């Protein structure tokens, strides 16, 4: 396996927010990661390159095998050989990760392989993300760009080094549909032509379901369902996934209330016993509270962490208490 995350656990201030995540990404595969705001998606992404913010956060256990090598035990020098060149990262917040004191051109130059035709490659990279206008504006700094332009500059930086693994954390939140399409097409082309593997973290379910080969759904720090996009969309086995799919608004909708999953996100410091989705689940029954369900297999590549998945998949809906 190209990338394999095993039993990953991460704590911030001694509170565990990633509570045992397993995930695999094959060579040339795109895996989507979705889930509620604050459920731990970014933390999983950051763990791969060991960028969990220093003093308060730490990976408490697990292995991250990149071509069989455990990234979590590499020395900082060894790790540097992977970061940036073999594994690139598009961060959720462009401004916090672009360097404010260097121009976009300087920052692109920094990540380019040294022997390239530097100017040519920079122009190429800018063009590919729709920032042609910046080719001649060499003195432009990150804060002088619009939100969507910053996002695209960061994507350009992430792909010029021709990485093997690309981690995209909400890469298109600031992009309108036309630009978004162009960028995602570009990434998918790299995947097809160069065998790029992708971890695609996003709340844009439509796009994730369309592009990803497989999708992991996270809730409260763990994967609660995993499988091919089509299966999750049409026959989700976990009530949380069902709620998410039902919340996708249609464009027709006018001045009505939006569907939301009822109830609140649980705090990591006060997670319930048993199934973590219990307080909000429409299908809950008494045994759900006894112990946290394991990730059971329901068909080829389709897993769900719910004791009623089988019924739910079979009947589409069932009664709870």
């Amino acid at each position: 396996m190209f990338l394999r995350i095993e039993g990953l656990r991460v704590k911030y201030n001694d509170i565990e927010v990633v509570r045992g995540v397993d995930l695999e990404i094959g060579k040339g595969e795109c895996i989507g990661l979705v889930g509620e705001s604050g459920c731990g998606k970014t933390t999983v992404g950051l763990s791969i390159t060991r960028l969990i913010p220093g003093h308060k956060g730490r990976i408490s256990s697990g292995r991250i095998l990149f071509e069989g090598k455990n990234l979590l035990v590499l020395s900082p020098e060894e790790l540097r050989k992977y970061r940036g060149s073999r594994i690139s990262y598009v961060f959720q917040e462009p401004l916090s990760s672009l360097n404010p004191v260097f121009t976009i051109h300087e920052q692109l130059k920094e990540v380019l392989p040294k022997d390239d035709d530097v100017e040519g490659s920079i122009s190429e990279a800018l063009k590919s993300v729709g920032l042609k206008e910046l080719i001649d504006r060499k003195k432009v700094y990150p804060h002088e760009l619009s939100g969507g332009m910053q996002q695209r500059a960061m994507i350009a930086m992430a792909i010029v080094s021709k990485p093997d693994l690309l981690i995209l954390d909400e890469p298109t939140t600031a992009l309108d549909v036309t630009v978004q399409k162009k960028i995602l097409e570009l990434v998918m082309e790299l995947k097809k032509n160069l065998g790029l593997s992708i971890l695609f973290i996003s709340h844009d379910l439509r796009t994730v379901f369309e592009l990803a080969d497989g999708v992991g759904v996270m809730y409260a720090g763990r994967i609660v369902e995993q499988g091919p996009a089509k299966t999750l969309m049409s026959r989700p086995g976990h009530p949380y996934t069902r709620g998410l799919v039902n919340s996708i608004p249609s464009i027709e909708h006018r001045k009505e209330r939006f569907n939301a999953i009822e109830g609140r996100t649980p705090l990591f410091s006060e997670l319930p016993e048993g199934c973590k989705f219990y307080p909000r689940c429409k299908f809950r029954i008494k045994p759900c509270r006894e112990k946290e369900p394991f990730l059971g297999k329901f068909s080829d590549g389709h897993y769900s962490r719910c004791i009623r998945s089988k019924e739910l998949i079979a009947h589409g809906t069932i009664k709870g208490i």
Partner: protein
Amino acid sequence: MELLKVSNLTKIYPKHKVAAIDNMDLSIDKGEIFGLVGESGCGKSTLAKSILRLTDVQRGSILYKGDDLLKAAARKMQGIRKEIQIIFQDPYLSLDPRVKIGSALEEVFLIHYNYPGPKRRKKAAELLDMVGLGKSYFNRLPSELSGGEKQRVGIARALATGPEFIICDEPVSSLDISIQAQILNLLMDLQEQKALTYLFISHDLGVVASICDRVAVMQSGRIVEIGLCEEVFRNPQHSYTKKLLDSISLT
């Protein structure tokens, strides 16, 4: 009634030859949810910042309740900042990295209302609760929040002064669908209960179509199409609007 009227507004950034806002006219009625869409870099955030005088413009006027904001004295502007709030596109910009979330919200109640400590804390907690963040967030620094949590703190902060007009710049872009729904429902409820007015900037046409009354489509610093939401979306006139709508129907 016209709440905001922008006339002949022009903004050119230094070092940059083309205008980010090019002789723009726009008016927004009280109680309206006004959508603003357009391609990345066309000047939407610049317009938002100009209204609050967070950036200087070269020419034009921005009338708010009849007063030109561009000519308002600092003192007057202070009062207006209580009535007009902005939810920034990048929450990173609105939150001081050294200030805990609770204190940042309390500060608003201190500056604008001079509430005593316990009342400030209560109000701040209520706001956090409204955006789905519990009391445990009170003592956290912005860096200790996820992207979507930060965005919601930005929303809570904008609501804190009890504004009449809120400029929302991509307010729900980092929220998952279900939380996004909760926040949009909250914004619509407030609009109904308090007749708030919104300038709603978003690249998500689905969201714009469902909550906005009117929508303007911007391209290179100009408004190229404007009208009632259902009309613009049903029967787009401008080529850019058509292109936008086409690319959603394909996905």
